[in-house]
């Protein structure tokens, strides 16, 4: 499936990027098409494009803080989790989402 998402943590320097890496590595290993935007202290990086969002089956928000631009995902299926879940169990999370949505 097509996944987009946003990662953001409190200090915005470490967990944000660990979460992104875990999601992307795991997602690709499971054969999904995945794009993750990071909102760290440095600002937004790898900003999601409109096309990516439109094509997405699901939006994963891995954030410990409020993220910017939630309105972009209006009408999308959104999963919100803290970064710790993504860091500890990326495979479990993506598999669960795929099962719940009936996609794989």
């Amino acid at each position: 499936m097509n996944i987009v998402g946003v990662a953001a943590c409190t200090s915005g320097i470490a967990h944000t990027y660990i979460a992104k890496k875990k999601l992307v590595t795991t997602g690709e290993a499971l054969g999904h098409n995945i794009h993750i935007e990071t909102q760290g202290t440095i600002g937004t990086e790898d900003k999601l494009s409109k096309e990516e969002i439109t094509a997405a089956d699901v939006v994963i928000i891995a954030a410990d803080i409020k993220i910017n631009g939630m309105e972009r995902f209006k009408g999308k299926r959104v999963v919100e989790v803290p970064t710790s879940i993504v860091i500890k169990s990326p495979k479990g999370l993506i598999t669960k989402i795929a099962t719940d949505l009936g996609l794989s």
Partner: protein
Amino acid sequence: MVEQLRLSELKRHAMTGVSYMLPLVVASGLLIAIGNILGHNPSLISDYKSSYTIWQASVTLGVYGMQLIPAIMSAAISYSIADRPGIAPGLLMGMIANAIDAGFFGGMLGGYLSGWCINLLKKYVKVPVWAQALLPMLILPLLASLIVGFIMFFVIGGPIAAASFALTAMLQNMQGGSAALFGAIMGAMAAFDFGGPVNKVASLFADGLLLQGVYGPEAIKICASMIPPFAVTLSWLIRKKRYSKGEAANIKVAFPLGICMITEGVIPIAAVDPIRVIFSCSVGAAVGGALIMLFGVESQVPSGGMFIVPAMNNPTGFLMALAAGTITAAGLLTLLKKDAVEEQIVEEDEEEIDLSGIQIK
């Protein structure tokens, strides 16, 4: 409303506050420290018409920054709850908190109240179509500022200021055993989850006290954040067999991160063997924290790792506490850990987590 009071929601708002506040705290703290060291504790600028030195300017700017902290904390919390309309009343509540000496905790409370107030107003205030534009521009910020402002001034401001003051006085007067115990608990909490939620509670507390002029907890936080990466590195140097090749590569990343006071580099190592690593690091950090309190080490700068040690009041004491904590944790790690199995499956272990609570909206 009930939804908003859930603990995870409350925490997310507080964390948003912290994330907006951190850069300001670091910049202000360093400005004060640099000015104080190089200018030999210059006085603050009181009269802009007469001349002043650059060190006075640096310290004064830093103090302005510190005074803004309750405001940015409050505004960010309020923004997190109520989006953009939350910012204006949030800033004002933070200014009140600063003015009535309710400090950082007063700012946090002001932020929650303004955010919730805006959300309630959004829900219940209905205006005719021609006044729609006035709602976010005038009605919401004005009403929320009035309502929460009066609550802050006349109802809860006094008690919070008194509680803040009592806490500050208690911590300042702590000596000997109780100081050491406090240091040990703070240290253990700060190291417990390597930058995770427990650590953030400890650092929130330390940052709050910084504004009240209590600088010891910041020194503990800095020390306890650096002990885990240093300890893992030291125990690897003592006995390399304890770590796999992959872990060794992680340690080489964790150490330089540790110098910058980023504990997170230890996570991959802790993930493989959580109980032993967390136990060892927490004990080491508790030792470090207790010593910081006993030596009376204080830091006006909340973040920056080894680079800000010279800015502390007692750098030698800090380094001794850091070394003692590191050696304790490294010793425990070396003793407790088993030799690494090199043929580990390349695939990373996943923790079993109950994901059933996660919903797709």
